[in-house]
């Protein structure tokens, strides 16, 4: 399968990438690792006229602490995140989730910024970032702005990013000493989640239970009100609207959400926070 023809451009600075996006408008798409965009283009579900490759922006590949916050460069690859000692220590949920995406070959290419900007409700990192109360830093022609994860995912494959904005950094509060867990149910290990759950303390993010990644707010309210994990997990499907497909019905996914949330909450409550 071969994509529809397009023009390939390469940006060597963030300003150049923003400029090219402004020049091409809706016809231009950013290319980072390409592991969400290129498969869609090969299937001809997407046909941008111009790809702006931002892979040369090596200064957007980092993980560092900034006070109590962990700052992650948007071009950090899943492989980088999974093996990064700073992230494993201060945001172990994200380090673990990055290592659970796809397979080693995918993790050598895919980037955190690419996954978040693509905004697939079936992807792992968006829900983990929601549960982490993360903030996304976007840069456009007018400078930088911060977007809380809870306001970033608007609709399927649609985010609060403007067409001429580029994700440059992802920030999360340090997760030191907070229990966490990640549960994902797949047909094969490399597949997208049928349902997944990311838990950090009493925050719960759900994968593939609506058109966007969502928080399990009823579960979180129950936990805040003193419910135990098993009681709270019974509420995991409340207010969700999962896909209803031949291989996994909506009712099946809601059942999975309750079961996986229960497991994740139990595991998070019992986990020694330091380890992966």
């Amino acid at each position, binding site marked *: 399968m071969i994509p529809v023809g397009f023009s390939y451009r390469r940006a060597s600075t963030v300003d150049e990438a923003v400029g090219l996006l402004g020049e091409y408008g809706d016809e231009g798409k950013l290319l980072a690792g390409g592991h969400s965009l290129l*498969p869609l283009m090969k299937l001809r579900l997407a046909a941008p006229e111009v790809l702006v490759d931002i892979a040369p922006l090596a200064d957007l590949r980092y993980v560092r602490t900034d006070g109590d916050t962990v700052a992650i460069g948007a071009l950090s690859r899943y492989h980088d995140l999974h093996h990064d000692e700073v992230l494993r220590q201060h945001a172990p949920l994200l380090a673990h989730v990055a290592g659970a995406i796809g397979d080693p070959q995918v993790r050598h290419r895919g980037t955190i910024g690419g996954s978040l900007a693509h905004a697939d409700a079936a992807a792992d990192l968006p829900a983990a970032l929601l549960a982490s109360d993360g903030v996304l830093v976007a840069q456009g022609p007018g400078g930088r702005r911060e977007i809380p994860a809870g306001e970033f995912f608007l609709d399927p494959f649609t985010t609060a990013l403007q067409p001429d904005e580029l994700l440059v950094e992802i920030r999360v509060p340090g997760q030191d000493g907070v229990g966490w867990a990640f549960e994902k149910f797949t047909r094969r290990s*490399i597949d997208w989640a049928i349902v997944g759950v990311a838990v950090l303390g009493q925050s719960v993010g759900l994968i593939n239970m609506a058109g966007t990644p969502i928080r399990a707010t009823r579960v979180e309210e129950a936990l805040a009100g003193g419910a135990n994990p098993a009681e709270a997990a019974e509420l995991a499907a409340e207010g969700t609207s999962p896909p209803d497909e031949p291989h996994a019905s909506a009712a099946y996914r809601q059942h999975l959400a309750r079961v996986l949330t229960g497991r994740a909450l139990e595991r998070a409550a019992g986990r020694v926070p330091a380890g992966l």
Partner: protein
Amino acid sequence: MKVTIEVNGRSTVEEVEDRTLLVHYLRDTLGLTATNVGCDTTSCGACTVLLDGESVKSCTVLAAQADGHRVTTVEGLTGEGGELHPVQRAFSNQHGLQCGFCTPGMIMASVSILAENPKPTRQEVREALEGNLCRCTGYHNIVSAVMEASGQEVDG
């Protein structure tokens, strides 16, 4: 566009369409046909090659993205005198193949696995090969081959 890609230690310079996939660059432009196209959807791993020493699925990388970088295919593992790479030799010794279609990708994925984890357990090998499918289901001997190539006991 013109791309310059180091393939198996040799600089290649070619004019390609912007949309050219790396696997087609290797197979059709350079004639290196050991790298197979299997599923063509980033799943099966038959097209796995090394990009700057790391395993990637070349059906999901543009030749343009490899411009200025280093690619290794299974043809590039064999020494100048024709001697097999330790991973190739181990696949032969352990009969780590049946029909052979997945083998180039399996070998390149295995080289990358051992570069990152030189002494894996059998379980770690199985997990690290999650991105490579063998439709003959010959996984047992493939795992044995990776264990032999790592210089460890094959049976664990």
